[in-house]
């Protein structure tokens, strides 16, 4: 379910965060679903438990998951849809790169819009993060 690439230039805790968020967006993980414990996750993906714990803490801070004492870690019922400003800037920057590449590859803006529509369908249209 989650694969990490130790040779990647992205820190492992960020890889874990990204993969879990992806599973949430795709609806594989739903609000209220229980996540593996730090120990189980570390053993499953073979990563340092401290690293997994760091990823969980960050995700909790971002409101994606919540830990209930003695019960475990769950996907948050109210996954915070609000993105902080830093994140917005980052995504805008990433989009800028893609636009430049697309421009040189001769891809039309209409084509780009179409792809975005398709991806929205793929992630599930009931996700209101896309309507803000």
């Amino acid at each position, binding site marked *: 379910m989650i694969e990490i690439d130790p040779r990647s*230039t992205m820190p492992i805790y960020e890889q874990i965060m990204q993969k879990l968020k992806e599973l949430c967006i795709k609806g594989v993980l739903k609000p209220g679903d229980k996540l593996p414990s730090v120990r189980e996750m570390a053993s499953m993906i073979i990563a340092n438990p401290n690293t997994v714990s760091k990823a969980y803490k960050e995700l909790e801070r971002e409101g994606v998951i919540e830990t209930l004492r003695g019960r475990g870690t769950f996907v948050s019922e109210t996954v915070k849809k609000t993105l902080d400003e830093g994140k917005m800037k980052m995504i805008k920057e990433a989009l800028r790169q893609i636009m430049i590449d697309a421009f040189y590859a001769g891809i039309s803006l209409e084509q780009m819009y179409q792809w975005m529509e398709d991806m929205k369908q793929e992630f599930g249209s009931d996700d209101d993060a896309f309507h803000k």
Partner: protein
Amino acid sequence: MLFINNVSKSFGNEKVLENLQLQLRKGEIFGLLGRNGSGKTTVLRLIQQILLPDEGEIVFEDKRIHLHPEVKQKILYVPVRQPFYDPFNYKQIVRVLKNIYPNFDVTYANELINRYHLPENKPFRNFSTGMKKQFSIILAFAARPSIILLDEPTDGIDAVTRHDILQLMVEETAERETTMLITSHRLEDIERICNRIGMLQNNTISDVMDLDEMKGMYSKIQAVFEEDVILTIREKGIPILDHAGVFYTMVLRKDDQEKRTFLKNLKPKVWHELPVNLEEVFIAKFGGNRRW
């Protein structure tokens, strides 16, 4: 929990370690990196007191280990080879270890030996390389030490056994907060399971850092210089990972403004900054003195 304070060690006239400083924290997996012959194994042997330091001291939980030999029960060293296990089978080795390590957990050892289908009645010398490693590591964990020193635990074994060994190590730290100090030339394994690393070079440990931070500390620079500047760059001590024609790939610390300005002044036609992985930092760090 373990402090190495200003430790120096020479063999004859050859200085191996000088004023080495290192602190290990509870429940961490620390990766000690270095070229062959840089003294990694010597560090492990000093902690286990197979060797005694010429100068300095090693302190475990506020006890100077050379004055308290009993702390050796808490620190276990798994060398690359274990020749003294050779003539014995599993049961015989367990009998010996039980006497040395009073906390030795036979149930746990039995369970893992069964889980990985390791032979119980064959003498150790007839095991394959991978089996020997796995077997030694299982016995080390079963002795319930606080610190385990693993010398190349995953080098020279197949992918399946490697997976099992790494998993065992991760579970051990997760469940019992065992501290591990490992050496390895398999950088992807280090990247996978270590939270901190240190580089052993020029008789001492430098660049102790969180692996996550490392990726943010260095940049890989891809640049195009129309003039031949390879000698100029080399003289400046900037590590070049790759050079072909006008294309240069270099590694820079992000905070090294001086070298950055120096490179920019060479008027690169193209300048790309990319993230690094451990292997690139390793080559940059240790390949620096090489004649290319």
